[in-house]
């Protein structure tokens, strides 16, 4: 049993700098949870508290049903993969992987078996006698994973493990770590600031900002129903478009007036919630793929193409819409060029409304 539970956990550094004010989080056994957020949001501190590398100022941290606040890292049944791999430069790959086991005084033949098993799984067998400096970034990363694997930990902690790799290798290692999780059936806690990693790998994503959990849900729910402006902007690339809009009510229908146009809001939206905002300015959010830039008879907004980024399969159009900036994902066959006028129609079913002051979601 390797669930992890934070109960009112606080982390304050000397000088009264509180990084995590009051963390409550439950991670289920065998779950792959991603802690995501911008730099300084407290995600690494949270991971390091699980590892035992940071003391907990107050509150309780459970691994399984045991409070581990004062338990030494080696006794927590965890293994950690660091951002810069933290391999021992003077040891061979074999010794790097075996080091923890040697300290545990595990018999040599058992160490040998485990090291070779991990090396086989990670395709490292031919590198066992090399030192880290003779390895590529991806190989080093695999050694770091191997070092964690051989300990058969109940919890895997990964602190931005892919951030030092190039884009191609990152994609490959992403898949490898996901496969590893499926094979090992162990709890994984993965810290990243890369929302693509978060979306593609985790069973659940915990979005953090200033040490506070903003939203904690499955990747799809997070993407479809962000609870506030921060989550809406953080998850998704290119990020969600935000337009100031005034809510109006006409003939029993709610409208969002923005960029000189009136957009009829879908029926399914909470009318009571919308009613409270009539006449007020809110933030209308719509993802780039939910805006259609194709020229058609029905459209919502007039815009001008400012930049067109060809991505291969698609094109990202950066448009000016009466002073507001809108990004649209269009097929690469889109005929418009920089300076052309574009008529945008929004997918009404995918519109999000946020309170301008509290930044909390009003309706999806």
């Amino acid at each position, binding site marked *: 049993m390797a669930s992890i539970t934070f109960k009112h956990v606080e982390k304050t550094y000397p000088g009264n700098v509180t990084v995590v004010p009051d963390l409550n989080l439950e991670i289920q056994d065998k779950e792959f949870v991603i802690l995501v957020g911008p730099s300084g949001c407290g995600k690494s501190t949270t991971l390091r508290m699980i*590892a035992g590398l940071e003391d907990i100022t107050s509150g309780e941290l459970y691994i399984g049903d045991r409070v581990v606040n004062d338990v030494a890292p080696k006794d927590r049944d*965890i293994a950690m993969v*660091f*951002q*810069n791999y933290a*391999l*021992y430069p003077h040891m061979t790959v074999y010794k790097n992987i075996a080091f*923890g086991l040697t*300290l545990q005084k595990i018999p040599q033949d058992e160490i040998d078996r485990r090291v070779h098993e991990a090396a086989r799984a990670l395709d490292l067998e031919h590198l066992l006698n090399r030192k880290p400096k003779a390895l590529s970034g991806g190989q080093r990363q695999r050694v770091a994973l191997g070092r964690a694997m051989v300990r058969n930990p109940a919890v895997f902690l990964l602190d931005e493990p892919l951030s030092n790799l190039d884009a191609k290798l990152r994609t490959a290692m992403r898949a490898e770590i996901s496969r590893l999780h499926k094979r090992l059936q162990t709890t994984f806690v993965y810290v990243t600031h890369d929302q693509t990693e978060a979306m593609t790998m985790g069973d659940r994503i915990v979005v953090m900002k200033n040490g506070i959990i903003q939203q904690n849900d499955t990747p799809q729910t997070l993407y479809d129903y962000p609870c506030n402006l921060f989550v809406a902007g953080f998850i998704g690339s290119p990020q969600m478009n935000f337009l100031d809009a005034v809510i109006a009510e006409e003939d029993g229908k709610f409208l969002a007036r923005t960029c000189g146009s009136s957009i009829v809001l879908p029926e399914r939206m909470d009318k009571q919630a919308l009613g409270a905002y009539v006449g007020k300015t809110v933030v209308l959010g719509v993802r780039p793929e939910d805006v259609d830039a194709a020229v058609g008879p029905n459209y919502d907004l007039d815009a001008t193409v400012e930049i067109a980024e060809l991505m291969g399969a698609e094109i990202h159009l950066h448009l000016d819409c009466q002073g507001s900036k809108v990004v649209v994902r269009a097929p690469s066959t889109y005929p418009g060029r920089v300076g052309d006028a574009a008529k945008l129609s929004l997918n009404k079913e995918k519109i999000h409304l946020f309170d301008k002051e509290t930044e909390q979601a009003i309706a999806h």
Partner: protein
Amino acid sequence: MKTTASLTRSKRITTFLTYAALILGSVIMIFPFVWMILTSSKTIPESLAIPPTIFPKELILSNFQDAMESLPFLNLYWNTALMIVFRVLCAIVFSSMAGYAFAKLNFKGKNFLFGIVLVQMSLPSQIFIIPQYQMVAHMGLANTIFALVFPGLVSAFGVFFLRQTYMGIPNEIGEAAYLDGCNQWQTFTKVMFPLTGTSVAALTIFTAVFAYSDLMWPLVVNSDLKMMTLSSGLATLRGQFTTNFPVLMAGSLLAMLPMVILYLIFQRQFIEGIASTGGK
């Protein structure tokens, strides 16, 4: 805009000037060494002649015999070797531990203590000679090998130098060792210390060279000729009114031999050590 031809010409001039400066520097640096070799084979009048004679008329090898008879060279070699070995060992052991503590551990008064190390580094070593001598004398250890080693038990430079080295090692490596089950001592001995090889080699060379050339302390603390080092022993060859320069130079040459041999063996490490510290 400069043409390719003028660029090539100016590059050649720069190269010529650089080499000329380097050759001049080398000649200046090597001159005393060559002069010592030449003088060691001269007669006393030749060595004092004005204008000076550069090459001796005949090679007088008896100067070496005289030097060896004047000084107990075996004792001097042995004392110097022991002093160097112990000073180097102490510098490595204590400087490594202190450097690691200053770089990687958090404890009360760390900055204050490190400040003291820096102050000690910035003061001339001569001001410590009297208190150090008094300490050694009170312990009744004057005229011993320990007395020679005493000022080198801890090295402020070594502590500072290795602290910088440990600071350059990512904290994650120590944390990984901690997670692997190392305690602080194991982290230091099994993981951190082995990573400082180049710096420890540099510190070894510096400490050895400094100990070898240290004159004042051995001269003060060990007055018994048999307990002297090469440098202090050679100093006794200087008379109050006259000095037998050929014998002194022959003795100096003999004293230099072990260091020259060591330099030839460890030339690469020596140069790397100097390069890595940016020292002189």
